């Protein structure tokens, strides 16, 4: 029984990796869902879920949006690049906001979220056509 349980955990990890990270369409959908949930969490503060959702959104969405048009060799490289690119985009835009004397994090968050969602939706719309031979 324990063996089946452990096996199940392993299978779940592999399914997550294959279905969510390796399939661009599922990945885009998951990121869109994350963007929506993070937006709701910011608008209607939701306790401990808010920082977690916002952190995930800030760490994945901008980088994922950049990577929609760029190929990566495997899901882990995609993840690493999505995080560092998101950090760089977050840092760059925050700095512009700070130095320009226009410190409005909510506005920046909305702009970044909307731009990332737009890129993901465009990518999602292109997915089925790309898959055709």
């Amino acid at each position, binding site marked *: 029984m324990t063996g089946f349980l452990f096996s199940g955990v*392993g299978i779940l*990890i592999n399914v997550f990796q294959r279905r969510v990270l390796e399939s661009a369409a599922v990945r885009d959908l998951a990121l869109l869902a994350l963007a929506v949930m993070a937006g709701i969490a910011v608008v209607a503060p939701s306790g401990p879920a808010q920082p977690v959702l916002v952190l995930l959104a800030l760490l994945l969405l901008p980088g994922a949006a950049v990577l929609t048009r760029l190929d990566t060799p495997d899901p882990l490289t995609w993840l690493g*690049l999505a995080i560092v690119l998101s*950090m760089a985009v*977050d840092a760059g835009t925050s*700095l512009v906001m700070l130095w320009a004397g226009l*410190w409005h994090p909510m506005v920046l968050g909305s702009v970044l979220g909307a731009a990332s969602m737009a890129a993901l939706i465009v990518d999602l719309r292109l997915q089925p056509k790309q898959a055709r031979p």
Partner: protein
Amino acid sequence: MTTAPRVGGPSSEERTIPTVDGAAPPLRPTGAQGDRGPGESSVRQIARRTAAIGPLLVGTGLWAVSLPSISTDHLDDYGLSPRLGPLWYAGLAVLLVGAAVNLCRRRMSGAVAGGYVVAVAAVLYGTIPLIVDEPRYAWTYKHIGVIRYIELHGSVDWNIDIYHRWPGFFATAGFFSVLGGRADPTSYATWAELFFTLVNAVLIVAIARVLLHDNRVAWTAATIFIVTNWVGQSYFAPQAFGYTLALGLMLVLVWQFGGTHCGTHRSVVGRWVARCIHRLTGRPVTMRLTPTPRVWPQSTVIAILLLLDFAIVASHQLTPYILAVQAGTLVLLGMVRPRWLAGAFALLAVAFLLPHLSYVNKRYGLFTDLNPLANTETVASSAATLPGKTFNVTCGRLLVLVLAVMTVAGAIRLLRRSDGRAVALLLLAATPVLLVFGQNYGGEAILRVVLFALPWCAILAAVAVTGGAAATGGVHVPDSPGGLPAMRGSRRYLRVAGRYSLMVATLLTCAALFVPAYFGQDEIDLMTHDQVEANRYLYEHGQPDSVIMNITSNAPVRSSSNYNRFFDESLLRDDKFRHRPLGTADVGAVAAEMRGYAPSGYLVFAPSTEEFARVFELTPPGAITSLEHAIAESGSFTPFYVGPDTRIYALRQTPPSPPAAKPAGGTTGRSS
């Protein structure tokens, strides 16, 4: 509607990395594809997975059970390591053995290896956030103050401190704090070390895969990185942020610009190095970073690299220079093109520095000392007279030595197979050493050297301890354990047993040295809840333009948005209060010292500052307690905050007349 293909090739399902002549074999799949052998039954597969995941669950369980019994009260000079308890150590050992066995398996599972990396990182870097209330390290609070200032003012003021001049990390954290509904970063800063370590591990796996095309080496490198990163530089700080970005930049650089269009034949230095290696090994050497062509458009890659570099340049003072030197080294060897990119990195860093040059020169000095030996002195090594401190410092040094030996062994292994990537990795590991020829970086130069060398050392060390495809020079042996060449009989089993033993011994040795080196300063690095609360209260209710005088500098000061309205100093910074008993006779001198900064002030007695004085033997035993008694009984000070382990005394603005000099009876401050 026309379709816009993803730049770089087919969909992920169809993607394979093309190989070139003489290069390493293609990337082996991570996870399920590599898990099930031909003709393997379901029962056997379940048993194998149970054996792979079992130690992961058992080790994590043991660690979780051990946490409630770990106490951080009254730590001695050995730090937290003796308090972690047998269950904690057993959990770590089980996890490391499980990770080692998985890394040596014939069909190593990438998913399981990832699980072990997360679990080992959680044990080593997640224990402290789970057992203490407040972030570790006094410096963390200084960073929190800058973030809170930005949140409040929406701007920076170059006159306040150097952080306002390099605000990339602080602006990003402030952005997150506001959106995340956590205006005070104290609530999440404690998790930064685990977060940065995990992201760095992911990046190291990606870099190792790109460079060596071997999953086993990649995951081994990530595991080694986690059990050797003892320098404690990945906490909530700009350097941790810049370091992660720098790893990301190096990943893009070597992957996109180190491909088939490069080679040492394009560079004089590269040709000379290749000739030297040829003479040494007797074989021609191919010095190319990755066997793949660039897959993204050049303009996109350049834009991404410059974006990453800009974020690094605006966040941390040191990282961009080390990055420029590392990129420059690869360019000199002809392993990275275009050549001008390293110059662009350097130019961006210098251009950002120029407006701040006079400030940096005046306050810190661009070059503190040209003597490399003096610059390798750390704050911890100066306290190595106590047995615990000597032990911890020695463990840290031994860990560096072990890693250096493994690094050299890995490089030799690659060179024996005419693989020129060894030179690139060795130089990437060695270039951070240049730092100690000009800066001591506040006693942290050698720690930064270790930090920046670590990823490249970890990759070479992984080559040394694995028998992966990278180490076989492109001779891929699919069905041999750990990539070992096909052998028969007992010799084969001996080699396999040797491979397992080497991996287990490496990880256990590194972890055994890591624990005292990493947890060994926690008697001064951990801040109590009361101490943090006391400082918060002080900034909230204290009189602006006052001086906050701590006994030593190891205090959670500047954690508030109005930190710039206060001076903060440490009493034992002045030699006249050091290395002698303190008491009633010193009260006047202390008051005068404080009045030298501001007419009003607060004298703080807190555990981390007193412990710092004890560990670094700044005062004889009992001197600080004696001074506090004298302060409490004098008329020059009045209690301002009295907590379970922290007391703050406010300096009276005018010295009292002799009849008023009696013990303060009523506590005017808050008691908690």
